[in-house]
């Protein structure tokens, strides 16, 4: 991708500057304060005393090796299981005529819309002794649930949609075109897939697995809910422990976060190294119609595979959430006299604040999707087509928030934006949440857009320039439309995650301003689990239906199939 990209260089200088400036403000500034607080423990009070002491304490603690090992086990395990789940499904979906493909897409999107802390709780309620499963069937799977493989499996069930959606789009773009060439030259269908389609999809595979790895090592809800029970501590739980109960230790939490960031950057370096060695451009000219193959006698087994994965990843957790939301009490279980709509009635009651929290989160979700999407497109373009040394740094910077735990981003943002000498500040307004969400979610659109860009030859852009188009016109008329599908997908994910982000919201939410996740958390913490689950169910429905409607509208307009 680095070679032969000269055409856009002149025009993308402007993009480079816009991107550098906004990333600096949104990502680098809070991150800088995290580093500062790790180095100068009393920074919050405006003092530079005792530099490096907490950082040294963290790095010299023998427990760090265990945390690091467990984090790696969790991250790599989740990547492996996600890939194993998503790769076959994505390939089948992209290259064959799978019956009811849209329905499977929808069902496989939902796990991503279920907040991990809700998913973990619903699995506990389902699988533990006397849980929903035992109430219905008489068996429980507590042994699997509270184990390291169990944690990895649950996290993979939550994250594999990322891989599935990037890859199915990717395989589709590569299409039968290249493997047809392979078949003509005498390769069998398997050989053509393994030697052509799969290698050409490397950027997508690498980008999505990197995202999964970063999400897995940063995710707090699942390891906290399940890992604590078996003494399986990871870096994130170590960080949360330091800010969850008095006495808190921000400098040590920041120090541990830096270790986490280094881990993610190492993964990022591996990804860059993998991609820099080859050329993955596949979109170099006139698009051709692509006929998907029929499944033939494999129809039923393939349907069964899709049904199994969707059933475990989507239907089971949704049923558990529904059961808890309908239950008047947890101890009443699934007895008919314990089920009713009281929780939903209380949720819709104007006094309870549930509706207000919903409208807050949904508008923040839309604003974040637009801001992160715009910034992501510009950054990905500047990195892929620009010139100069700053590009790699920009690329790394755009990934960093993925490895920063929400709570640490929150602390960094407060430190950065609550300085007394700032004449105006977004702090203590909803804009601070917009900044926090954009910072945390920017990696998604950047990854998606740059994977799309890497497969776009620059010959199209060059042709536009030769025909007299200005660089900006070429970007707007050629590059942007070609990466739009990937970008929209990522913006929908950003919308979904931003409307339910918990950890940073809990810390930086303006006084008296409640989001969906804060509402749910308050119910789980000291209220009614059922009410929290009712809210979760409404959120999942809304964050799934809005994107689906959008996608349906887009498909109708952009392409016939």
């Amino acid at each position, binding site marked *: 991708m680095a070679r032969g990209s000269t055409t856009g260089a002149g025009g993308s200088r402007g993009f480079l500057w816009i991107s550098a400036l906004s990333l600096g403000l949104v990502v680098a500034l809070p991150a800088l304060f995290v580093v500062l607080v790790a180095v100068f423990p009393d920074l*919050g*009070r*405006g003092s530079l005393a005792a530099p490096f002491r907490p950082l040294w304490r963290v790095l010299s603690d023998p427990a760090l090796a265990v945390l690091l090992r467990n984090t790696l086990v969790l991250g790599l395990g989740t990547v492996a299981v996600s890939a194993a789940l998503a790769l076959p499904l994505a390939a089948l979906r992209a290259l064959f005529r799978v019956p009811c493909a849209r329905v499977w897409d929808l069902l496989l999107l939902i796990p991503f819309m279920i907040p991990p802390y809700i998913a973990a*709780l619903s699995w*506990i*309620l389902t699988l*533990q*002794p*006397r*849980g929903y499963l035992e109430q219905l069937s008489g068996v429980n799977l507590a042994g699997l649930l509270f184990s390291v493989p169990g944690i990895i499996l649950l996290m993979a069930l939550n994250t594999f949609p990322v891989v599935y959606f990037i890859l199915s789009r990717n395989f589709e773009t590569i299409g039968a075109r290249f493997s047809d060439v392979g078949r003509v030259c005498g390769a069998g269908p398997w050989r053509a897939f393994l030697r052509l389609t799969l290698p050409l999809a490397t950027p997508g595979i690498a980008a999505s697995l990197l995202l999964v790895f970063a999400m897995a090592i940063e995710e707090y809800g699942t390891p*906290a*809910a399940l890992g*604590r*029970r078996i*003494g399986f501590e990871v870096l994130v739980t170590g960080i949360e*422990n330091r*800010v*969850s*109960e*008095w*006495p*808190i230790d*921000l400098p040590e939490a920041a120090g541990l976060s830096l270790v986490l960031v280094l881990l993610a950057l190492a993964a990022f370096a591996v990804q860059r190294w993998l991609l820099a060695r080859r050329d993955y451009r596949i979109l170099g000219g006139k698009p051709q119609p692509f006929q998907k193959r029929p499944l033939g006698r494999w129809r039923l087994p393939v349907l069964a595979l899709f049904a199994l994965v969707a059933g475990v990843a989507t239907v089971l957790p949704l049923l558990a959430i529904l059961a808890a939301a309908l239950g*008047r*009490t*947890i*101890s*009443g*279980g699934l007895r008919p006299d314990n089920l009713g709509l009281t929780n939903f009635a209380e949720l819709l009651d104007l006094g309870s604040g549930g509706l207000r929290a919903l409208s807050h989160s949904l*508008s*923040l979700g*839309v*604003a974040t999707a*637009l801001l992160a999407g*715009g910034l992501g497109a510009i950054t990905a373009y500047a990195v892929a087509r620009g010139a100069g040394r700053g590009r790699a740094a920009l690329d790394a910077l755009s990934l960093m928030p993925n490895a920063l735990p929400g*709570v640490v981003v929150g*602390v960094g943002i*407060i*430190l950065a934006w*609550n*300085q*007394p000498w700032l004449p105006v500040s977004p702090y203590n*307004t*909803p*804009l601070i949440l*917009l900044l926090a969400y954009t910072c945390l979610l920017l990696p998604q659109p950047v990854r998606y857009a740059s994977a799309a860009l890497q497969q776009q030859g620059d010959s199209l852009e060059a042709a536009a320039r030769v025909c007299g188009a200005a660089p900006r016109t070429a970007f707007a008329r050629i590059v942007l439309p070609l990466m739009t599908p990937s970008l929209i997908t990522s913006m929908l994910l950003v919308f979904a995650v931003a409307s339910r982000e918990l950890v940073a919201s*809990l*810390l*930086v*939410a*303006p*006084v*008296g*301003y409640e989001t969906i996740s804060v509402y749910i958390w*308050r119910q789980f*913490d*000291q*209220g*009614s*689990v059922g009410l929290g689950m009712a809210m979760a169910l409404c959120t999942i429905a809304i964050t799934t239906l809005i994107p689906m409607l959008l996608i349906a509208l887009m498909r109708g307009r952009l392409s016939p199939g």
Partner: protein
Amino acid sequence: MKLSLIAALLLATATTARADVTVYSAGPGSLINALAAGFTATTGTRVNVFQATTGKIMARLEAEAANPVADMVISASWGTATQFAEEGLLLDYDSPNAATVPDFLKLPGAVAEGVSGLVIAWNPTSGTPRPTDWADLARPAYKDMVTLPDPAASGGTFTLVEALLANDRKDLLEDLKDNGAIVAGANKAALTPVLQGAKAAVFAGVDYITMDAAAKGESIEAIFPSSGTVIAPRPMMILKSSQNAEDAKAFFDYVLSEPGQAMVAAAYLMPARTDIEADRPLIGDMKLMSNEGAPARDEVLSTFQGIFR
């Protein structure tokens, strides 16, 4: 489109930012919301509430230290008050309504809003005998059926473990471990499995959370152990940095007023004032363990982890 959204967000800000007293409070959210609404109804002064865990509140206060936002803080851990007082962060205010609050619930700069106690939270439909004391939960009848909140994530459990160590009852914790008791995150994470019946009892449950769940119809009972328990006063403090100390003092007085303390009692907490009725056991009714001579925090936590890991 983007601009109009940002404008809408700004507008929303303009309506929420103008408030008179800013309070950071630990849960329960329903209590602080009721107190704020009652105060506004009687004085017309608005109260803006930020509600989170004690840890999150302290993290926010520490990050905001250069430019404090809060006027008043209500935490669930008495240690926060002693430390803030030592650091000289608190405004010394002698509320007229605090006259009937016992001395051990007061500091210069802090008065308890209410007090919670630690109990055995037992599920009567779990098929186990009703426990009466901590040591019962180490008996074979409760094998693999007990959860504990993690003292690193629950201030209440920490205080109890501290008291057990101070009273040479470390063996009780070891017996619990041998009996298959598990450590399960924060308070609620320890309670949920007991509600569903996966476990029978929480060792070191929080009394008001347990009573509130029972009042909502859950099958759960708060049992005060016969050998004694510990309490956790919830300190209420006005920050010296407050730009609005007069209104903060008025809210402070309101929380300690008779209607304010009645709201505290309605949340199943023990009122700080001794002259307020409550439908639950009060401090005078329960036997308390002493924390005298307990080891330092790090040692308490590492001893606990040494037993349960």
